[in-house]
């Protein structure tokens, strides 16, 4: 059977409507920038819940919203309002968002990097090249002192 014959036969079983994926993929691509932030918020909240042994249902009760609403937030697809962020911070006792002022130093427990090594998905990524172990930092990332112990060696190796 040739490919064209197979494609003809497929016409009989293939759905006429377009696949849902294409619309979703377009949406994800068009809204990539804020979705990234939403995902970061959801991940931080999920890890905090796990660390503190709080369920999504507990969080819903604390925030006086439905468990379905909390579950929707946790997907990382919600365009959070400042109000929601502030209420999440209050309920969990963690800081989720910090606005860095232009020209002002970062908070005292953060380290500002003089220049950047290479773009990576996370703020810090451990790299292995043979026996050499190093870390690379995302462009513009702020990292805690605990995460930055090997930055000097990175710069000398990669930079």
């Amino acid at each position, binding site marked *: *059977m040739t490919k064209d014959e197979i494609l003809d036969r497929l016409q009989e079983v293939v759905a006429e*409507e377009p*696949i*849902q994926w294409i619309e979703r*993929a377009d949406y994800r691509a068009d809204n990539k920038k804020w979705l990234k932030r939403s995902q970061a918020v959801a*991940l931080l909240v999920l890890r905090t819940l796990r660390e503190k042994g709080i369920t999504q249902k507990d969080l819903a009760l604390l925030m006086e919203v439905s468990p379905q609403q909390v579950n929707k937030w946790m997907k*990382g697809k919600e365009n959070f309002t400042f109000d929601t962020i502030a209420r999440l911070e209050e309920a969990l006792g963690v800081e989720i968002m910090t606005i860095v002022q232009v020209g002002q130093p970062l908070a005292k427990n953060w380290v500002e990097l003089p220049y950047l090594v290479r773009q990576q*998905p*996370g703020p810090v990524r451990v790299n292995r090249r043979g026996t050499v172990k190093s870390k690379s930092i995302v462009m513009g990332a702020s990292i805690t002192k605990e995460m930055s112990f090997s930055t000097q060696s990175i710069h000398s190796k990669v930079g």
Partner: protein
Amino acid sequence: MEIIRIFVVVNRSLLSVQFYGEAEDAFTVLFEQWSDVEYLEDFFENNKADLQSGFFGEISVEEAVRVTIDEAERLEEYVRRLARASKASRREPQLDFVFKDLKANDPSFQLVKSKAYGVSKPSWLRIYAIRIAENLYVVSGGAIKLTKTMNDRQHLRDELEKLECVKQYLINNGLISEADYQCFELGRYDER
């Protein structure tokens, strides 16, 4: 396990099945899951031992979630480009360069079951499909594969079952014949 519909992902090249009981087709479901923070956090937390076994180096659950989302984004963008290009022209995307044999040397596999890797190596993202003609694939599902073989974990064994189901469906509907039963070697992944 039963297939109720087939959707076109990329014209003349990539199709995706919808299983009975599922609200969406396999390809749509995959990218929903791979962009769902709750799903990913839960998956990596439940598979933490595999994640941190050393195969992918030192990696935390948080990092794994971020890497997966970024990797899936790149893979999705690649397929979007193919889908757009295939609408604009009759030129067929060269998917044979993307999919690799699952068991190229296993004679018990008459149909070539294939998988697509994520766009960066090493990647744990897998899309599973059956190749029914040159550059023509039917997606059955996909997975985050943290172990060496598919028989090691239930979620991967489920994917083997889905592949088998798709194979039967294609045979039952006369979409594949003996002439299609040929093994082949696919090239390494090369984004183009």
